[in-house]
């Protein structure tokens, strides 16, 4: 691999990591109640369960996209499903990045804000993404967990305790 390609991948990884961190912070600021519900989901369901649910839904979505691609007129529906999948994964990512930040910040103190958690988690994941192959694989695992978290949220949100955050 030439140095130009390595530089491009590095810059792209930094952009993805920092961009997602900033987007997570913005989403947490815009929809604090939903973010709080997602935090409860990540804390009350194990990582393995979220990962399994995420990879299962990703697999089914892949099959759906393959089937839809057989019929060209349905291509627009395929694009819509892909877009929806990205959005749903990002919703879960808001909580996943916060969970990683929470774990990291526990090394320092146990009373940090959501802002600090998201920032610490985002920076950690951005750094992990820079690690070739292994780091990118970990990032993909986290994306699957994010999808699982979102699915959990979609199915359990009615049973979640009412948020006290009215901002």
């Amino acid at each position, binding site marked *: 691999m030439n140095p130009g390609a390595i530089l491009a991948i590095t810059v792209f990884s930094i952009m993805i990591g920092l961009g997602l961190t900033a987007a997570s912070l913005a989403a947490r600021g815009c929809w604090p109640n939903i973010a709080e519900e997602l935090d409860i989901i990540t804390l*009350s369901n194990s990582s393995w369960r979220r990962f399994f*649910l995420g990879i299962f*839904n990703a697999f*089914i979505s892949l*099959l*759906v996209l393959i*089937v839809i691609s057989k019929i060209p007129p349905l291509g627009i529906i395929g694009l819509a499903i892909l877009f929806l999948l990205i959005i749903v994964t990002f919703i879960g990512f808001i909580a996943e990045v916060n969970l990683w930040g929470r774990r990291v910040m526990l090394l320092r103190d146990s009373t940090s804000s959501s802002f600090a958690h998201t920032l610490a988690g985002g920076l950690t994941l951005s750094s992990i993404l820079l690690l070739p192959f292994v780091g990118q694989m970990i990032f993909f695992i986290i994306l699957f967990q994010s999808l699982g978290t979102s699915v959990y949220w979609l199915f359990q949100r009615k049973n979640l305790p009412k948020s006290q955050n009215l901002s």
Partner: protein
Amino acid sequence: MNCDAALILMYDLVDGEISANDQQLLNKHLSDCSHCQATLKSIQKAEKFYQEEFLVTPSVEVANTITKNVWERKNVVSFPLKQSYSSTQKILYYVGAMAASFVGFVYLAGSLAVSQLITKIDFSSYLSNINQSINNPNLDINLNQFAQVWRGTLTLLLNINPWTSHSNIIKVLTVLLTLFSIQFAVNYLFTQRKQDKSL
């Protein structure tokens, strides 16, 4: 010293925060005032009761166990699901869900098998034989009616079979419907359970 001032000193006495001079003054007042003697006794009694009944110091083992449990569970958030089913209800729901899944599976697998068989057998000659039988004037009328009903049923079955349909849209929609049904069922069964006790 009046009784109001003595009352303040009595509380200081019980708390062990009275000076020697104040205690001397209080003792002098108490020797002359039976009402304050009774008040002091009741205060001392109440203080003794609180110390014995409420201020229990846990043993080191108990304190360590409590701290450990709180520490281990401090990040765990649990919330109850609204619906709680009895064992009988659970069994009924699972049996119902399995029966429905089995029927769906048999329908899809059976229709797929039929569509595969149709490509292998000479189905057109089979139908033509039936047609010949129907048009045969010597055939018994009951058999003729039976053949008509059978042909109609077979035609209907073939028309509603998604795998033998000539339209690709119907095939794709059937597959998509099946995939979405599986996805929804797994997601629902996976998420509607009691919460984990630990991460």
